[in-house]
């Protein structure tokens, strides 16, 4: 018997080109409640893919469905259940974390009381409580990233898209962020994350997708990926490098 798994993100034939194709007829299916890690070398098309999904870029072709909602036909409804966080925390220097979270809650039309409760919980979990009423302008990169993450989670999104969220974070901050993300997945949320820190993908992801030259070249659990390379006892790093190396001659042809 096959268990029914709702699709959180369905991408079909996605294309996006700048000077050259960045995403090339990409098909991707991510299930609800899944922690999905998207890996790939620099310039593989990971960030472009996620920016298109988040509604920041318009695709040249293809379709995107978020929790069954056509994100291209009804972007507002899709954005209502989605959160986006990039590697460069974009917050307002002159606002405090609490003011920032109140602003985000207003944009997502979240009930004020629910938003305040959620903001209080998130600032506590992320260790931001002592700084909740200080302007963000003096914050370190890690603190800014945590404020941005709190903003992404305060409206309780079903699908959380993160592009290199752990870049530049110290070990403590990175652990806090990872714990919060794990908690979200446990609560039924879907996390899609790109990372260059393969250890994070190895430890946290339910499934891993490897993208190169704008195409998905491999996908599955860590064991499935190992089997694809024919090396069962190697680390994700070795597996990843083998997979990516295999695509280079193909792409060059």
């Amino acid at each position, binding site marked *: 018997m096959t268990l029914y798994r709702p699709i959180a993100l369905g991408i079909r034939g996605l294309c996006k080109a700048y000077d050259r194709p960045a995403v090339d007829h990409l098909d991707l299916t991510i299930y609800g409640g899944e922690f999905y890690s998207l890996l790939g070398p620099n310039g593989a098309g990971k960030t472009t893919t996620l920016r298109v999904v988040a509604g*920041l870029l318009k695709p040249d072709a293809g379709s995107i469905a978020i929790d069954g909602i056509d994100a291209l036909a009804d972007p507002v409804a899709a954005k209502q259940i989605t959160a986006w966080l990039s590697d460069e925390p*974009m917050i*307002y220097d002159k606002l405090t974390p609490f003011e920032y979270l109140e602003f985000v809650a207003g944009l997502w039309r979240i*009930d004020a009381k629910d938003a305040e409760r959620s903001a209080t919980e998130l600032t506590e979990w992320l260790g931001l409580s002592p700084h909740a009423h200080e302007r963000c302008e003096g914050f370190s990169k890690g603190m800014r990233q945590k404020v941005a993450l709190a903003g992404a989670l305060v409206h309780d999104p079903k699908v959380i898209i993160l592009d290199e969220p752990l870049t530049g974070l110290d070990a403590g901050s990175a652990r806090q962020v990872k714990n919060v993300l794990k908690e979200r997945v446990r609560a039924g949320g879907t996390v899609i994350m790109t990372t260059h820190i393969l250890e994070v993908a190895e430890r946290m992801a339910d499934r891993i997708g490897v993208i190169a030259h704008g195409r998905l070249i491999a996908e599955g659990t860590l064991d499935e990926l190992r089997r694809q390379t024919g090396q069962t006892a190697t680390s994700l790093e070795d597996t990843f490098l083998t997979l990516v190396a295999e695509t280079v001659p193909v792409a060059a042809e």
Partner: protein
Amino acid sequence: MIQPATLTWLAGHELRLSWRDWVSLMTAGRRHRTRTVAIALVLFAALMHLIAWSMVGRYADVTADKSTLVIVTGSMLLSWSLLLSQAMESVTRAFYTRSDLDLILASPVSPRKVFSIRIGRIAGSVALIAMLLASPFINILTFFGGAHWLAAYGVVAAMGAVAAAFAVALTIALIRTIGPKRTRLIAQIVAAVIGAAFVIGLQVAAILSTGSLSRFAPLQSETVMTHAPSADSALWLPARAVMGDLAALAVVAGVSLILLAASILIFAGNFGEHATAASGVSSAVVRQRPVRGFRRRSPGSVLRHKEWTLLLRDPWLISQTLMQILYLLPPALMLWISFREGGGALIVLIPVVVMAAGQLSGGLAWLSISGEDAPDLVATAPVMARRITIAKVEAVLGAVAIIFAPLVIALTFASLFSALICGLGILIAAAAATYIQLCFRVQARRSQFRRRQTSSRIATFAEALSSIGWAATSALAASGSFLALFPAVMALGILAGVRVIAPRA
């Protein structure tokens, strides 16, 4: 081959940075626009020469009598106050931008050497901009009056050097007295006040003495002429230098170089120390009053509230706005006198207010519409892009309304009709300036907006011309003249032109 780490080598490096800064300022960071910018600059220069001809062409043959010397000196003081303001802005920026500070201080080059060049660069930039702005006037005077007017270029450069020397001294004095944290805001406000004070002072004097807004009226008054020193006084040396007295020019240039050299010798050694202290201010903790429970607001309302909060917490913007408001003081004084005496000076007041409203709105719109620190957040929010833009425009027009409402309300006591025209003029000028900024919007962080470097030059000029058009329309409408239609059509034409040439999104 220039030896590395020598004064010449460092000067070359600073020169290259200045040049790239200038090109970026002119082309709004888009190199492919160089040709367009060059054509626009030539056209602008031609227009400026035309304006200069209409303003000073008839004075090309003046002789250095007392009355001329007073006027020339007054004009120089007026321009110098603006130069000092500009230099203070540059020095503050040099202090508070981290930029290459760590690299310089960590390198084995003497910081004194590096910062001597840097102060020199500030002086050079200020002098160059001043010479560029003064060039149409000097060229016209030279063309019609003779080559002796070319000496004015030397005086303008000297004024730039003195302005830079004073700006460095003033800013460092502020840092030493009130500390780097407070200096950031205070220096910007001082720069704004200095820039406006002399112009405003002369206007206030003109209103009180002659009832006009002309800043030259007090300089031509009998009182000033009686009390001014005789024509051979040393006080008029700079004015004489402008008019081609080479001996006077040598004195002026010598004094300015001595002042600049003294400023470099005294302050260059500690410049790095102060700059380090100042640039570290950005990491200082600023606590806000805790939010008293989240409030239920619509997306439009939270966007407006966010814009207003950010505008209020921006010291640079406050100083710029303060400058605009300071310029409203003379018209306000004029309104008060006119109301008291029942005079008909209101018609002169209305265009000044309308013009100020247009300029302020343009500045606010530029910052609010194009400056977004969290573009991804706003773009991924479940709100239509159109609604976001509307909220930003509402925030700008709301701020303008708050600033100008007291003046319009005061005007209703003097003349209801004038108040109505003034209110409409403010609204239209503000909406037009905002529209222009909407057409030329770019995406950049607010920290990149200190000098509107990424702003389109066309947008800035269109905004100024539109404000002038609506100011003229309001003045003529207030006087009941049908001629008001002409500047209105011109202003609408500018908006139509903007729509045509604005880059497509």
